């Protein structure tokens, strides 16, 4: 059993305990998250900032007579949980009734887990390796083209997020997901012209990252020159835009 599994189990127990606070006639849903994260920013070959974090919180929705109230708290002590339920309840009293205000029913068939959504081993990756990746993407980006004089910013980030949800309608589920990414914002100067370009690589864990690709994208996108502003007429063959699959514009 991994630490991620244990956290999911703790969160499920937490949301079930809150659902147990529902009053008669109330539909109550509790949604809790736990997040473990690291981020690194570098500048000019040095670590600028290393951040590690752990946080958790819970949100409560209560529906009474088709009136909806919501409250959230980071205080998961017994007193904090009692307060957040009371807040959600009083908020529901002032909401407008809407027949759409109902809590979802549980699915007929439990959804199949998604393979590879979380890589628990990401939590065990040493900070030094994360720092090295951030430094590497900056080093590569500033070494590919003489016009790229520096990286405006470069870094690494990751997170393992666990989620649990339970409600009086019978919903009870949890999952975890992980995410890692490295990025660089390259800054190119050529005479008086200055351009910036972003390169990003991401995946479920650090082994998925293609640092060279991110560095090349950052440099390539900093190499474009400003397009002149003009009105594009349909079919005139000029000034049209194409959207690439990765979401970036290419202007012919």
């Amino acid at each position, binding site marked *: 059993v991994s630490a991620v599994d244990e956290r999911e189990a703790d969160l499920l127990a937490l949301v079930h305990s809150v659902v147990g606070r529902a009053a008669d006639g109330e539909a109550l849903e509790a949604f809790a998250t736990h997040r473990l994260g690291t981020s690194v920013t570098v500048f000019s070959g040095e670590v600028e900032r290393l*951040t590690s974090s752990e946080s958790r919180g819970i949100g409560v929705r209560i529906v009474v007579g088709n009136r909806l109230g919501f409250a959230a708290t980071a*205080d998961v002590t017994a007193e904090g949980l009692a307060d957040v339920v009371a807040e959600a309840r009083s908020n529901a009293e002032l909401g407008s009734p809407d027949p759409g205000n109902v809590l979802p029913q549980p699915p007929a068939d439990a959804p199949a887990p998604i393979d590879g959504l979380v890589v628990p081993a990401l939590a065990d990756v040493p900070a030094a390796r994360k720092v090295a990746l951030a430094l590497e993407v900056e080093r590569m980006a500033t070494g590919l083209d003489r016009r790229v004089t520096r990286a405006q910013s470069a870094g690494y980030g990751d997170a393992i997020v666990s989620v649990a949800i339970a409600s009086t309608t019978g919903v009870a589920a949890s999952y975890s997901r992980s995410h890692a990414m490295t990025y660089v914002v390259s800054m190119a100067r050529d005479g008086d012209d200055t351009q910036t370009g972003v390169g990003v690589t991401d995946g479920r864990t650090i082994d998925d990252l293609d640092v060279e690709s991110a560095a090349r994208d950052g440099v390539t996108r900093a190499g474009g020159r400003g397009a002149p502003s003009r009105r594009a007429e349909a079919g005139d063959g000029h000034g049209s835009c194409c959207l690439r699959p990765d979401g970036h514009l290419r202007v012919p």
Partner: protein
Amino acid sequence: MLEEPDVRAVLSAALASGADWAEIYVERRDSTGIRVEDRRVEELTSGRDQGAGVRAVRGTQSAYAYTNVLTRDSLLAAARAVAAGVQGAQSLAVADLTERGIRPAHPIARPPSDVDKASKVALARRCEDAAWAVSPDVRQVLVSYADVVQRVFIANSVGFVADTTRTRTRLMAQVVAARDGLVQTGFEGPGASKGIEHFDDHPPEEIGATAAEKAVRLLDSVPMPAGEMTVVLNKGGGGVLFHEACGHGLEADAVGKDTTVYARTRGQRVGSELFTGVDDPTLPNGWGSYDVDDEGTPAARTTLFEAGTQAGVMSDRISAYRLGEESTGHGRRQSFAHVPQPRMANSLVVPGESDPDAIVRDVASGLYCVELGGGEVSPATGDFVFGVNEGYLIERGELTRRVRGATLVGNGPTVIGLVDAVGSDFESKQGMCGKGGQWVPVSFGTPTLRIARITVGGTSQ
């Protein structure tokens, strides 16, 4: 919020590996949000967020850890984590922790907690009713109410301790009006570092009606012709341009890294001699105001441009260190889950001596912008594009037709050099500013400003 021995233990642990200084930031934030749409209370939320961040700093390097488990053990774990991230040879002790007496400069008459939620809902409903009453052309009204009470405790190893509470309230109305297939929107959303007394100065009815009137007025507009022309920015209307095209480029992290167009022009004449701009977090009860910044440095007014000469930058402790200066008290963070960054608070262009009416009368042909909308700026170059929410043609010194679809296209340093008239009036607007994934409340204010020439984009031939 924490006992002194716990604070000292956390700071000592964070310093253990040789940091120059260490800091603990503890926050508790209580908030209320109400959304009323088309005569229904669509959302009523309340929340309490709390947590602490511990930072160790050596030169310009820092390590930061945060948690929302506020036990001594959890905070010490965070302190040990940051100590591991900042290595040095020195061994410094925590100085005497003496709370610096901060005289609250933004008094709160009626804290949001003194008013029940039903009364807050009533404020939003009054605003909505007023918007609907403006015209049968009003099609949709969305009103949002928000209040936040943020208590912050900051202590650092050089002996600084601050405990401050920030209260902010805001009511926003967004209105959609339509006629003959033309759809336009209007927005009004004044906010302040005040309690419920904010609505004495800005009655909900006024906010709703103003937003609706803007939307309805735009239904009578004509498409804007494009070209280079003289532009007059109404009082308050140019604030967002100053904030985006000048302010961000004068934040000291970008200046220190040479990633802004203003990095190498300090002390040089950049703008018109009529142009003086400041950032002032001490503005009484301003939306972006505070007593101390999020590193505990007392708030202070910083002059950015003095008669056109680039005078100063806005810094936090680390960016100031990089520049060899002291922090100007502009280290701000969204919450305990974020590290401080140099940020604007209330960025203002100082009023001049020109009669605002005369500024328009002297223009043969141009554009009068009542309010700018969203835009985009490249801090590296200063290039910007802004939409014009409400504008009028100036023809022979008179405001004539309302226009829609106008955009301003220019460059920050160039445009402030082309300011040829500054009005004696003044108004500010409020908003939320995003940078590095963090959002903080800011305001931006200007007198009436005239720019001799700027490229205006439009949809009319």
